[in-house]
């Protein structure tokens, strides 16, 4: 399988200590300063973080963007359902931003990036889906692709039906060519084991922990794959 190389990354979560890592933003509210206030007002915390990170990783806004979220914006969706139940008309802004590609849509308007942009939800297999899509675009000749994964806690009303999710978003720029500052991503089959069916689905916070060296592997039972960094590399 073609090797993937991590060129750079950014993360946002208020649930970790950055410990001097300038790639990780741990503020409660991401600045969102990369995009104009009139667009920023429509974004939730994940959206603000995603736009900031994408523009840092690709200032020229030239690369394909793959954006995954398992749950999307559950809060806005639920508010719309409550409004319907009350017989109230739906808020157009809320409706427009509840769709799964809303965040990258706002990013596209703000940045002028007119490349292919894809919104992915995969019932817990988001990371595997992102890697598969990234390989496809890179095999098609892209020099780099931007891979984004973000989720916020699901609304209380749905909490019993979804895994506990802490707010986090992470963006990576990937390519096929090794360079001075790249890290090779090892992607291999997850050997079937009795416990693997019980593996929790990787969340954005897991990816951040893996990037910062707090976690050795990303394992995804649904795609039967695991990812790790090439041995002997230091954590960035």
């Amino acid at each position: 399988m073609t090797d993937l190389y991590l060129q750079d990354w950014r993360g946002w979560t208020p649930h970790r200590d950055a410990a001097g890592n300038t790639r990780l933003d741990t503020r409660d509210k991401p600045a969102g300063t990369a995009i104009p206030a009139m667009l920023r007002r429509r974004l939730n915390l994940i959206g603000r973080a995603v736009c900031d990170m994408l523009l840092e990783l690709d200032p020229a806004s030239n690369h394909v963007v793959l954006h995954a979220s398992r749950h999307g914006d559950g809060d806005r969706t639920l508010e719309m359902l409550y409004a319907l139940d009350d017989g109230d008309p739906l808020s157009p802004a809320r409706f427009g931003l509840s769709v799964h590609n809303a965040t990258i849509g706002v990013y596209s308007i703000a940045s002028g990036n007119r490349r292919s942009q894809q919104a992915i939800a995969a019932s817990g297999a988001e990371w595997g889906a992102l890697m598969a899509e990234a390989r496809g675009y890179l095999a098609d000749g892209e020099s780099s692709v931007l891979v984004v994964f973000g989720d916020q806690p699901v609304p209380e009303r749905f909490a019993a039906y979804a895994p506990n999710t802490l707010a986090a978003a992470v963006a990576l720029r990937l390519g096929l060519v090794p360079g001075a500052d790249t890290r090779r991503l090892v992607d291999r089959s997850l050997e079937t084991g009795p416990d693997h069916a019980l593996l929790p689905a990787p969340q954005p916070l897991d990816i951040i922990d893996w990037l910062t060296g707090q976690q050795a592997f990303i394992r995804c039972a649904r795609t039967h794959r695991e990812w790790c960094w090439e041995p002997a590399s230091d954590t960035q």
Partner: protein
Amino acid sequence: MTTTALEHELKELIIETLELEDVTADDIDPQEPLFVEGLGLDSIDALELGLALQKRYGITLESDAESSRQHFANLKSLAALVEARRVK
């Protein structure tokens, strides 16, 4: 120029309904355009504002684009619309 109580109320309605972070009532000039130029609102804001006028004042706007453009031109014209057509 003095701002009427209704104009002030509409400014607050716009800021709250459209979640205009960093905008205060003083930033909205009653004579300046609300859309595209001036305040810089967009078409989704127009729909959202129409909904807010319906909820707050019971005003149902006709689907005629030209009259909506006139009503939504600036805060003064919006206040005139509310004055003339409010049922609550």
